[in-house]
């Protein structure tokens, strides 16, 4: 059980990444694919946070005397995740915008039926 306890965040993060990839690869409905992309992004964000996380760590601010840098959570991955979330939102918004237009043009979101461009 100690393995699970130590690596719980990594297992959860990679689980989300794999679930997201599975959805993107197997679903045909564009909205479901977009949901899969969102889950994939969430998994990666969680992984990035887990890289820098320390159990019972504190914020990396020397607010009172006696704080040691060793017990502080690495702030860099958290800054990366903030950026990655913003980028993810932009991609999702654009994807949903395209999905709306596709539905208006084709009357369906099934990617198997939307295939005018083949060879």
């Amino acid at each position, binding site marked *: 059980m100690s393995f699970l306890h130590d690596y719980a965040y990594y297992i959860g993060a990679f689980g989300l*990444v794999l679930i*997201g*990839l599975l959805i*993107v690869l197997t679903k045909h409905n*564009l909205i479901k*694919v*977009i949901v899969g*992309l969102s889950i*994939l*992004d969430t998994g*990666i964000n969680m*992984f*990035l946070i887990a*890289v820098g996380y320390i159990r019972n760590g504190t914020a990396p601010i020397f607010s009172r005397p006696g704080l040691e840098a060793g017990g502080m959570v690495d702030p*860099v*991955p958290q800054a*990366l995740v903030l*950026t*990655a979330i913003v*980028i993810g939102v*932009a*991609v999702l918004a*654009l*994807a949903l915008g*395209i*999905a709306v*237009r*596709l539905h208006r*043009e*084709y009357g369906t979101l099934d*990617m198997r039926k*939307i*295939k*005018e*461009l083949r*060879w």
Partner: protein
Amino acid sequence: MVSPALLVAVPLGLAFCVPLIGLASRKAARLVPIVACLFNLVVSVRLLSAALEEPIVVSMGGFSPPFCITLYAGPVGLLLSALVALAGLVVSIYAVSYIDKGATTRYHTLYLLLLVGATGVVLTGDVFNLFVFFEVLCISSYALVAYLGDRGGLEAAAKYLVQGAVGSALLLLGIGLLYGQTGTLNMADIAGRVGSVGSASLFVPMALMVVGLGVEAAIFPLNGWLPDAHSSAPSTISAILSGIAIEVGLYAVIRVVFTVFGASSALLSLVFLGVLTLLVGEMCAFVQGNIKRMLAYSSIGQIGLIVFAVSIATAGSVTGGLFQLISHTLSKVVLFLAVGYMIHRSGSTEISSLQGIGKRMPLTSFAFTVAAFSLIGLPPFAGFASKFLIVRGALAEGGTLLSVLVGLVLVGTVIEGAYFFRVIQTIYFGTGEGDAARHESPAIALVSMSVLVALIIVIGVYPSLISDTLNSAASELLQRGAYIRSVLG
């Protein structure tokens, strides 16, 4: 001396001025990308001569290198940013007459953001910053592929977006793993530390990053989006995607493999992937009836050739690969721009409908022919010099395996020649229906194409004009130690 940071900052600022200027006058908004590209071109070329002696390293935010975001303006970065600015300038001049329908101010904003992303990717010295600029490039190109809002464009954009988003996610995962192992995001700092990390635990982040970047670079199994996206976008965007976006993706792959990981053992598989990409691209291009799809598949083939040449990793072949990258950008931009008005005049994208267009649009057809000859590698055009350098570099390395692969590359070139000659024959010798009245492209489009046509011929006749720059760019890629020292001091 101007700071290389302005190469990113000025177009980024101007990109968000476009909607404001567009409120006052939509005509003036079209000129903003031209101004931004001209600025970037002049600054890049001026900095390039200084960077040939010593690379310029800019530390943002006032911290010293591994802690800050660095911009690394060496010969490779500035050469490519000059190329981005040149192609961007030509395409934005062309777009003044070509993009006349729809939300034109939004088009110009996104177009400038695309160029900002491309310039940022080639100049940055930080892997996370690479990801951010890469996303700026990708998101604006997704939106621009769907710009026309027709059925094909929307479908292509949806496919491109899903594949691109998965690729970016894998790239970010790779960056996260790399950060977990080395504790730094600075490329030079990572390059200095990977030696002390086990090669088995470096394989996963490298594979993730190469696959993630390879989606945008259209390396063989990852290129499903490209033919759709390039053929459904407006021709100006096809030109910029084909001439800039995939080259920048390829640069990122090369930078990650050569500089960040220094993975000489992975290069042989990249050589094979390059030849495979080349053959698949050229064979698919051969069977196309749609001219824009043919050009898109031809881009895949050319990317394969560049991957092949650079992955041999000798000074001669890397120089040849970079030369090929430049000559491909010059010719493919002209090809897509020429085809843009040919399609406009003939009303169809089928090659068969271009019969006799050489009589109706002689100047546009001439530009198309010069660019096609350069892409095939006929003298005296730029493509001849670059393909010659690649073959010479590969054969100088020796070995039976490489000789066989060079043979396959030449087979690819023959296929390329076959389909381009077929199009040129249709253009000039096909019997056009009915009216043969001259109906040339607008003057401004002809001016923009003639700039690149002149460059193709000048570089083809005097390849020594850029050989010094290419040689020092190749040595920047091959010498990791010098890169690490110049950033970290």
